[in-house]
């Protein structure tokens, strides 16, 4: 079985670019990824591409071949759709194909165009990641679903909005140096507490923004990397995926994410690491409460303790386990289809010392990327390690 190397990564700035098409965004990300990798486009065996709302935002289906063309790649291309975990699932399949010896070089990534829909349109588009009949038609929105989980968490394990506010403050702080982040501005706990309500107890500053952006990653087999003398010190050493019932009300737990736990356990076992070996993680914090559920699901913090981790300084840049050093979805932005691949890019840069926040994880060998779809009916987890 081949080791899977991250040969190169590319990100567009995440943010407000209502005029940019997703093909333009993905072209930019892929150019950067190819330049970073030193891999020839001719060697690419496949493009695996994540996108969620292309039909609604651009009247465009069948993204695979379009994006291969945009990236200048002549290879079979497939679109992956798993709501906000779309490119996480694409990365997972890419890893498995390289390990199986099926392919040597895969371009994997994703893009999303969202801001041209406006707030109402994007809210509607995101809502379709939930059960249309039983959730959306009852008026549930995507922030509303996470608000239901937040309230359930408070009732079951305690905690309050102020605890969540510390997560938003931390992730904005982390994004200050990230030139690709949507928000490079510090906020305070009081800003979060005083922001307009979106879906109680969550307010505007508990929510990730609506974003445009793309991410691309060039993955190669170990043999290819060695033959071509690539500088690719980071490997994806573990992959896992979990699933759960579609509607939140059908889940066993309202305040836990078993799909992410399943994905995490599988990825840890695959890589042969323990949660205690994890130096830092990029997790899917589409809402502040989502970061709590993520770090508990990944076993980085016991159930019921994730809520206070940011407030206690345990997940801050200088804490024991920094979470979302990129700024997370909250401050870096969340172009849905690009998010999973962008996390792989951020973890790679952090591990190889090429990230503006690398100083906080100097000497780190193990990072984790956690990507969730819907209210975590889908989840992928990847372990990345520095190869010896």
């Amino acid at each position, binding site marked *: 079985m081949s080791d899977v190397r991250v040969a190169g990564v590319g990100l567009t700035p995440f943010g407000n670019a209502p005029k940019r098409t997703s093909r333009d965004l993905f072209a930019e990300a892929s150019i950067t990824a190819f330049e970073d990798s030193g891999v020839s486009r001719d060697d690419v065996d496949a493009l695996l591409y994540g996108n969620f709302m292309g039909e609604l935002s651009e009247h465009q289906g069948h993204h695979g071949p379009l994006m291969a063309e945009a990236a200048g790649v002549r290879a079979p291309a497939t679109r992956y759709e798993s709501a906000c975990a779309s490119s996480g699932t694409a990365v997972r399949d890419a890893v498995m194909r390289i390990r199986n010896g099926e392919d040597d070089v895969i371009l994997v990534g994703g893009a999303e165009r969202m801001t041209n829909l406006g707030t109402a349109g994007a809210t509607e588009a995101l809502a379709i990641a939930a059960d249309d009949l039983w*959730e959306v038609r*009852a*008026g549930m*929105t995507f*922030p509303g679903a996470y608000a239901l989980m937040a309230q*359930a968490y408070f009732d079951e394990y305690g905690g309050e909005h102020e605890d969540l506010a510390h997560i938003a403050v931390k992730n904005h702080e982390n994004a200050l140096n990230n030139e690709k982040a949507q928000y490079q501005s510090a906020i305070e706990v009081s800003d979060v507490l005083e922001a307009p309500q*979106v879906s*109680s107890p969550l307010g505007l500053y508990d929510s990730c923004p609506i974003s445009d952006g793309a991410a691309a990653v060039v993955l190669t087999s170990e043999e290819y990397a060695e033959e071509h003398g690539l500088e690719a010190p980071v490997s994806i050493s573990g992959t896992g995926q979990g699933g759960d019932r579609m509607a939140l*009300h059908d889940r066993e737990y*309202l305040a836990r994410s078993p799909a992410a736990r399943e994905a995490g356990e599988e990825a840890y076992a695959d890589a042969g690491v323990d949660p205690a070996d994890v130096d830092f993680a990029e997790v899917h914090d589409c809402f502040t409460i989502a970061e709590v559920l993520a770090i508990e699901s990944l076993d980085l913090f016991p159930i019921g303790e994730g809520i206070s981790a940011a407030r206690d300084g345990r997940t801050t840049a200088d804490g024991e386990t920094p979470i979302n050093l990129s700024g997370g979805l909250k401050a870096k932005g969340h172009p849905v289809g690009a998010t999973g691949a962008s996390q792989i890019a951020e973890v790679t840069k952090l591990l190889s010392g090429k990230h503006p926040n690398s100083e906080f994880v100097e000497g780190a060998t193990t990072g984790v990327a956690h990507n969730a779809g819907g209210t975590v009916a889908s989840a992928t987890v990847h372990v990345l390690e520095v190869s010896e």
Partner: protein
Amino acid sequence: MNDSETRDAGFDEWLDAAEEDRAYYLACPNDHGSLPPRRVCPDCGATELEDLELPDSGEIKTFTVTHVPTPAFEEDAPYATAVARFGPVRITGQVVGIDPEDVETGLEVEIEVTVSETTGERVLGFSPV
């Protein structure tokens, strides 16, 4: 969004039944409960599902007050949405007949099919007992 001619098999029939106080759930031979439309028990894969009457009242397990709705609920906001347990199933619904700010976990509710002020479409609702 459906035009009035179109119906979603299983779901619209359930709303019809709920409007006549005959709300039901699907039960499999192993006592798992689920909501229609469904041909297979999602817990065990059993394909013999029967309609059983839903308990008259349920209990709110979690709730939220939504201020930023989808376009289909623009005129309705702010409104409370809750997940309530009715016997073997949990259901998501909009809480009506009470100030949204007064909704709380543990509140006892019954099913009340209401309509969206924005679209006039039927909405699965809960009202305090």
